[in-house]
């Protein structure tokens, strides 16, 4: 499954980093502590979080995640948008809360 498939099936907003819209998705990880994400997210996973700080992109880039999904209608901060566009790692958005977003994505990836 690709990032663009998630966008379509979960009706996600694409904030930035559109070049990476065809990134392959191998799974997902949900966490808001960036120290935890740094240690535990795997390459090719989608990362679900409520953090909007620019540091999310640094970690996404370091760990080569497929895309970031921001929950609860949160929008990325300006510096995060800039880096997302440079790196080609999309930041996506949903109005769903973390529990619902994770559950929906789990079903989609494991269905």
């Amino acid at each position: 499954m690709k990032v663009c498939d998630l966008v379509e099936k979960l009706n996600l907003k694409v904030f930035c980093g559109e070049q990476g819209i065809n990134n392959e998705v191998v799974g997902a990880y949900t966490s808001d502590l960036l120290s935890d994400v740094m240690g535990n997210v795997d390459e090719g996973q989608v990362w679900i979080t409520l953090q909007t700080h620019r540091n999310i992109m640094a970690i996404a880039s370091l760990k080569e995640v497929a895309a970031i999904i921001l929950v609860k209608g949160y929008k990325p901060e300006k510096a995060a948008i800039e880096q997302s566009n440079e790196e080609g790692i999309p930041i996506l958005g949903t109005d769903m809360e973390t529990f619902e977003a994770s559950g929906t994505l789990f079903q989609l990836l494991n269905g």
Partner: protein
Amino acid sequence: MKAFRADLHIHTVLSPCGSLEMSPEQIIQSAKEKDLDIIGIADHNSTRQSRLIKEIGKQNDVFVLCGAEVNTKEEVHCLAFFETDEQLDEFQDYLDQHLPYIQNKPELFGDQVWVDAEGNILGEEDRLLIVGLDQSIDEVADKVEALNGIFIPAHVDRPRYSVSSQLGFISPDLKVSALEVSRIANLKEVLERYSWIKNYPVLTNSDAHVPEDIGAGYSTFLLEAPGFNEIKKALHNEDGRKIISISLKF
């Protein structure tokens, strides 16, 4: 120039987690007993007790930095200090404006009162002070800089409420004066784990919530005399002012 001992992270009776013994008088008395020349008053998201302590400090030859321990949107704790009453007032307005309204339950979190020099209660903060502001760490840092303040991310080595736990590392664009490592830190291990700390001046403090802990962690500054701008220069290693040592055990 002379060496001055500084503990820049002390909570008062106003912090919900601060002991009721942490009255202005007691804090200054304990600071004297511990040979501290400079202290920083940093209650969670409030500056309201700090000014009186500065006044009492003046009469007792203890220089007091007035400020707060801000909790940002990401739940990163940061120390912020200001030179003038006007700057402190403006920062208090900023805190009042951006602290979400969650009512304190003193039986769960502790009392949040501020007191006069005799320890009489002057007011009680109704909002729970330990919640995160609706402002990002960058926004808080910008505000502190606009008010010519000192901005120090607190206990950066700790697994909770720190820049390392919440945000992983410090973005190079963030305007920080220095970093605080906790007084129990093993600096060598911390630097191995978080190499970005090397890019900043490092100090340590007590983070005291009870009188006995005041001065349990401190940093020694080389200054002409205690003063806001002298300390600021030392943090930036300017004009010969500097941090000489920090009181870590390891």
